[in-house]
């Protein structure tokens, strides 16, 4: 029980994928300019990440390791992601009527998902912890997107120097948040 909690906190806050690992930065930059996109991608991620981490973890554990094909890991993961993303799209309305499915390709092709899978493998999580890790990462990602989107709408109206408008000031914001999140360092060993 404590382990679950630790993995969840660790992946969501302490080692947040956006500001600590700086992996989810690219979608964060794109998505946070608009509220509906941010919402859509967050929803997708909350479903996609746990699903893919579990499947990828299973694939590694039951196929790649027995066959001693770990060197193909990255390649297999890329194809897995594509399969899952497009498989989900075939599903009729997997996310209700939110219309979030149109963000699937956008969510699928970015590096966040792959990064999460590889990070998960680094930590040698078992299947269940992989799921928790994926969930935690997705929560952390969604949280960051929510914060950044709200900040962006405020910064958009601010008297920001012209050369820094748009993504540049978002990157500075991200930097400052990263700095703030350094305060969590040492929290979970």
């Amino acid at each position, binding site marked *: 029980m404590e382990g679950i909690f630790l993995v969840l906190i660790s992946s969501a806050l302490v080692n947040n994928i956006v500001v600590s690992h700086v992996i989810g930065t690219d979608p964060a930059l794109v998505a946070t300019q608009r509220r509906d996109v941010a919402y859509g991608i967050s929803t997708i991620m909350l479903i996609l990440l746990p699903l893919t981490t579990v499947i990828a973890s299973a694939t590694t554990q039951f196929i790649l390791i027995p066959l001693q094909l770990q060197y193909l890991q990255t390649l297999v993961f890329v194809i897995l992601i594509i399969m899952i993303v497009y498989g989900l799209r075939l599903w009729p309305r997997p996310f209700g009527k939110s219309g979030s499915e149109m963000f699937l390709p956008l969510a699928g092709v970015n590096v966040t998902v792959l990064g999460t899978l590889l990070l998960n493998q680094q930590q040698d999580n078992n299947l269940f912890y992989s799921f928790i890790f994926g969930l935690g990462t997705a929560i952390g990602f969604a949280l960051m997107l*929510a*914060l950044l*989107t*709200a*900040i962006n*709408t*405020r*910064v958009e109206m*601010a*008297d*920001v*120097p012209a050369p*820094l408008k748009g993504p540049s*000031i978002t990157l*500075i*914001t991200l930097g*400052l*948040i990263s*700095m*703030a*999140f*350094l*305060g*969590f*360092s*040492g*929290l979970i060993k």
Partner: protein
Amino acid sequence: MSYIDKISSPYIHSLTSINEVMRQVIFALVPGIIVTTWFLGWGVLVHCVLAVCFALAFEAIMLTLRKRPLQDFMYDGSAIITGLLFALTITPFAPWWVSLSGICFAIVVAKHLYGGLGYNIFNPAMAGYAFVLICFPVELNYWPIINGDNGIIESLKIIFIGLPHEGLDSLSGATPLAFTKSQLNGMVMLSEFSSGPLFGSLGGKGWEWIGLAFLAGGVWLMIKGIIKWQIPLIFIFILFALSLIFHGHDPERYASSMFNLFTGGTLLAAFFIATDPVTASATPRGKIIYAAGIGLLTYIIRTWGGYPDGIAFAVLIMNAAVPFIDNVTRPDVFGKVKS
């Protein structure tokens, strides 16, 4: 008559202004500065002067670069407050360039890149402090011992030339918070060292008086109506309640509530940093969440995190969350139709 054409109702005004508010805040900081100087030596005052000068200089440079009217913004006092708060959070033994780089980061990056006063997302003083804390952890680690004999000349020497290598131990020591942390990490029981020379009756020796001075300034601000009660009181309450619970659970591993309140920058942060109107939440419910968040994060980082005092990080993290909090805590409009 042309200026009259621009006027619109209302035609009367409460006669408060930013300048007035900022001036009151500076006045309220004075007792804290005096007491801190008393206990930690002249370095505090030197740093205050240094930081304020740097802050004003950077403010002027940035305003000129951004082609904004100097006279409007230079005298609003916000840069002075940033400088003072920064100086009060760093150690008085810090070299002068720590002040310079910290204030530079605070004013240039955290404040003016976002558009200056009113638009900054992050508290400039805390952003500057976090910046130097990450960049120069060693320099910020030496704190003077309470009531150590630091003359003004010595303080200037330390700040501009550097700490002397010999006799370092007679001058500096750990803060009560850092000491507690290192001892607890070393699995030493709290009761074994809490009667040591660093500790007073409420919190750290000397620190409790500093805390009380800031408390007095803060209460005065609250009475004057400059700051509202929500943020400081809820912040203090959460910190108090959390430490009470954990202290009650295991008094050997967790420091007492009073210790948490009266050491470190708790009371300074509660009344002067967390209440910064620009970076705090503006909605009634948002203010509560914001203050509670700072209290919670401060306690978590202090107790389990890697840094001895987590207030700066807690404030910055909650600053980042403020726009989001404001969005989700918008009050219902008057006469909202309940569906």
